[in-house]
Every structure is written in C-alpha cells, then in structure tokens.
C-alpha cells in the first residue's frame, strides 16, 4: 500500500522534541522560523453555546513534525485546530476549557497578547481567502503591515515566501496583479505564502486542499513537506491518502453521538497499518465515514 510512502517518518518520530529543538537552535537559516519545542494541547474542551463540541483532547505536536487530524465531518477537528491559535473565540457563544502550551506556556493565560500568539501560530483556511483589495505582492506582505512588523528587505522576503509556497515561478511577472486573478490552487498557495511571511513557528492548515484539483493538491503537499523542515505543521484533512503522504503523526477524531473526541493518535504508518482502536481501523479502511 502507498501508506508507507514517507521513509523518514520513523526517524522523525523517534527524535525527541528536545533534540529537535537543539537542532533548531543551532543551525537555522535567517528568515526561517525558530522551531521552539512545539505545541501541546492538554485536556481541551470546546463549546458552542450549550453544545459541547469537543471533549478532553490532549495531543502533542513536537517541533518540526507534521500532524494530520482525520475523522468524519462534525467530529470537532476544525474546532480543535481553531482552539490552537485562539480563532475559536471569534465564534459568538464559543467557550473552551483546558490548556494549549506553546513552548511550555499556555496561550490562554490571562494577559497573553493574543495577536502575538497568532503571529507565532499561523493559519491557512479551507477556502482560499486572499485580500481582494491588494495585489499579489501586497497580499504576501500583508501580515507585516497588519502586525506592524518592520522588514528592511521586503522584496527578498516576498520572493522567499513565494518560492517556499511553490508559487514564485507562476507569479513573478505579475506581482502587481490582483490576488483574485489567480486560480483557486494558486490563491491557496498565495495564502500559504502570506502566512509564511510573518515567520510562524507553527502552521495550522484547515483542510487546505478541499477546494482544489489534484494538481494543485500535489503542489501544496510538496510545499508542506518542504515547510516541515522549518516549522511545526498541523493539518486537518478529509483525504486519508493525503494524511498518509504528508504527515508524521495522525490523530483520529470521532463524535459518536456526544462531543467529538480524539480516539487514537500514533505515528502515521501505525495508524494506517495497525491501529489499536477498532473504530480507527473501520475509518481508515473506508468502512464508514
């Protein structure tokens, strides 16, 4: 089966967070992110009004790894990923419990500057959403303006982000065109480039390929693999082959009548070859969902 495609899965899985962190501290290229020691969710619950949507999720995202969140619709994957950079609170009536630790510090601690948190934990959304009033180039650099960051060499940064998002060759001659003039797949890569420009430690991707054709999906998966060298990635996906192709770890979510829960998490190869839980096996083998 194609599930064993990523050879270095095991090596990465073996590396402890601290050893990764020391690698990160030593040899980082300028302009790429500092990895830190990763993200950690502890006992996260989420509510919408009275509706208990997510219960007791504890999950580690070691620095420099790709973690896929899979599960049927309505199981709380998107809700969970939105608690990880405090986007959950934008929904009226939302509530949560538990801790989300970035480098050991709770991002929900009172007094935390939430805009700083979102700078470190970037997000790519399901639907490509470039800013319509800005050109392609302005879109890439919009994060700097939004967060009022200084960068002396904007042109280099713009090129670097577009190269890393795999879009540079397609747009280098029309950086002054509007973002909306790109195709859906290109717009999504533009959104990835935009998220990279503020140099996040963690990148959350909420079904980034669900609106895209196979070719664009492939480009974005390549982008994810390249990015995982320099940042921690969490990706929600409905496509199990995609989870198998890009991720080091996989977590399976399921809502069985009640709130969504995390059923099982393990190295991706294990989830797809010998899951411990029967429900996981049923899902990954396509028996339901």
């Amino acid at each position, binding site marked *: 089966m194609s599930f064993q495609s990523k050879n270095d899965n095991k090596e990465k899985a073996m590396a402890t967070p601290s050893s990764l962190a020391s690698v990160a501290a030593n040899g980082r290229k300028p302009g790429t992110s500092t990895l830190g020691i990763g993200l950690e969710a502890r006992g996260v619950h989420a509510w919408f009004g009275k509706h208990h949507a997510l219960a007791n999720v504890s999950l580690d995202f070691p620095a420099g790894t790709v973690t896929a969140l899979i599960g049927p619709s309505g199981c709380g994957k998107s809700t969970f990923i939105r608690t990880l*950079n405090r*986007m959950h609170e*934008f929904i*009226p009536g939302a509530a949560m419990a538990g801790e989300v630790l970035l480098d050991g510090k709770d991002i929900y601690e009172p007094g935390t500057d939430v*805009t*700083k948190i*979102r*700078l470190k934990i*970037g*997000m790519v*959304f399901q*639907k490509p*959403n470039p*800013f*319509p*009033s*800005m*050109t392609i180039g302005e879109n890439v650099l*919009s*994060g700097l*303006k*939004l*967060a*009022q960051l200084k960068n002396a060499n904007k042109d280099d940064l713009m090129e670097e982000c577009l190269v890393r998002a795999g879009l540079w060759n397609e747009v280098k001659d029309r950086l*002054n065109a*509007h973002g909306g003039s790109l195709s859906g797949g290109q717009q999504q890569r533009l*959104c990835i480039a*935009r*998220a990279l420009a*503020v140099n996040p430690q963690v990148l959350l991707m909420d079904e980034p390929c669900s609106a895209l054709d196979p070719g664009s999906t492939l480009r974005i998966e390549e982008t994810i693999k390249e990015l995982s060298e320099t940042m921690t990635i969490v990706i929600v996906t409905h496509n199990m082959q995609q989870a198998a192709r890009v991720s080091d770890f996989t977590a399976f979510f399921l809502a069985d009548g009640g709130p969504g829960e995390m059923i099982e998490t393990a190295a991706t190869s294990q989830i797809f070859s010998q899951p411990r839980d029967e429900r996981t096996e049923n899902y990954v083998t396509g028996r339901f969902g």
Partner: protein
Amino acid sequence: MTQSYVIPKPSRPWRPSPREKALNIGLLLASVVTSYALVALTEMKGKLAYFFVFFAALALFNMARGLITKDWMNGRDQFFSVIMLLGMTIVILPTASIIYTVFDRGRKGLHAGLLTNDMALATPSDPITSGGLLHAIVGTFLLVAVASIVSLPIGILTALYLTEIKGRFTRPIRFLVQAMSGVPSIVAGLFILSSVVYTVTKSYSGLVGSLALTILMIPTIARTAEEVLNLIPNDLREAGVALGGTQWRTVAMVVIPAARSGLITALILGVARIVGETAPILLLTGGGDAVNFNPTQGAMGSLPFYIWKSFLLGTEESITRGWAGLLVLLVLVLSLFLLARFLGSRRTK
C-alpha cells in the same frame, strides 16, 4: 500543421429567427391597434387607457402565441414577461418624464451669466439674462460638504460598531438608526432651530443648516455602510486576525478597502438624500441672494431655496429661473453620481 477543419461562421441559434421577429412586431402592432380600437369603441378615455389596454393586449397575445406554438407553461412564461415589461415601463416613464420636463423648461432659463452671477442686484421681474445662481451653487456645495464631513465618519463608525464590534448596544443602536432614517426633514430642521439657533447662535447660517442635514444624512450612510460591510466575507476578517493583526488593523487594512466602492455608494446615497432637501434649509439658512463663502455667518443661499423662492415670487421670469435652477440641481446630482461611480470603480495602482 495543416488545419483539418473549416472555421464555421459564428452564429447565435438562441436568438429569435426572422420569422419570430416578424411575429413579435406583428403582435406589437396588433396590440396598438387593439388599444386604439377599444378606446375608440368603449367608454375608456385618456392616455392611461391606451397604456393599459396596450399592455393587456400584448400580454394576452403573447400568451396565446405561447399556448398555440408550445404549451401552457410557455404561455404563462410569455404572459409574465410582458408583465415585467409593464413594471419596467411604469418605473421608467415618470423618471423620463421628469427629466424631459426639467430639461425642456429649464433650457429657457439658461444664459451666459447663469453660473457666474448671483441674485443680489436682480429683481424678480428683471429679464432672465440678469442675475444668476452662483450664490445657490456655492451654498449647496458648502452645505453638502460640511454635512458630509460630519456625517461620513460618524455614519461609517456607527456601521463599524454594528458589524465589527457587535457590542452590547448593537440592537438598540440599529433600532435607533432605523428610526432616525424615518425622521421627517422638517423635524430635523425644527430640532436644530430650537436647540441651536434660538439658544446658541441666535442667527441663521449655513452651518446650522448643515447640522440639520447631518441628522438626515447619518442614518442613510450608517445603514448603507452596514449592509455593505455585512457583505464582506468573514473569511477575510479571520485571515487578517490569524496573521497577527489587531481588530483595528484588520478592519482598516482589509475590511474597509474591500468595501471601499460600497462605502462610496453609501456616501452618494447620503448626499442624494440631502442635496435637494428644502424644509430645514428654509428654516435655518436664511437663503441670501448674494454669494457667501462663509458657512458660519450670514444668510446662505442654496439651490432648493432658490427654486422655492423663484416659484413663490410668481413672475414669469422668476418661474423660468426656478426651472433653470431645477435643471442645474439635476445636472449637479447626476455629475456627482458619475464622479462617485468613477472613483468607486477605479482600482488603486
């Protein structure tokens, strides 16, 4: 490479064929004949009778054609197409008639000095070529400009509160804004008269007139801007915030630029609401006959006031002046609209 096919002539098979076109014209003529015949033979009289008999006949003929050539569904389709045409005509005819009448009568009042002279030295029975309405144009511009400068920020900030902050007072404020947009203009005028003119300024001026216009303009701008801002997809706000922007930075850099052309439309609608407003102007501005560039002091003319006064004076010359004033007001509003459309559709860079 050789081309293996002959490029066909582009055609539009969905367009009506010559035969169908002929039939359309035939039905149209038949309807005209029917309306004349019915009006002549029955007791119905007047233009309105011709108008409605014509449309009724056209609708029935088209329905009959649909029934005969196709089926019941198509007949109904044809019938309602004509009803739509009737609705459109009912909307367009009065507008066209107003524009035609204003241009036709106002044209007689046009002369070389119209836009460069004021009425300070002209009496109502002077020939039309003496005097002009410079003072009224200057006054209207100043009144609208001052009212816009005050109303635009307040209106847009109100709309931002309703759509972005969504605070505790959203519902009462939305209710108040809606209620305010129904305030009769004379009430706004009387309110400023009693609360500002009698107690503070004790005199007429352009500024107090603008204040009354502001009361009318703010709800229009706020409501339109709210609708426009509600159309901006939430994705964009989330994207801005997820990139580390504060709410204010996101609104200022993402939401407002995305809504720009709609916000300009809100301003146009606000200006359209007040530019022809007469009642508060009559109460508050004093309506001078000389050019006055100072909105804080002295009587200030304006186009609605000029028109009202000209018709009131009643001499033949002054009524012609009134029509000319209407023409200028109409052209002014039209060019404002075109300018705003142009600004709104133009993209930056």
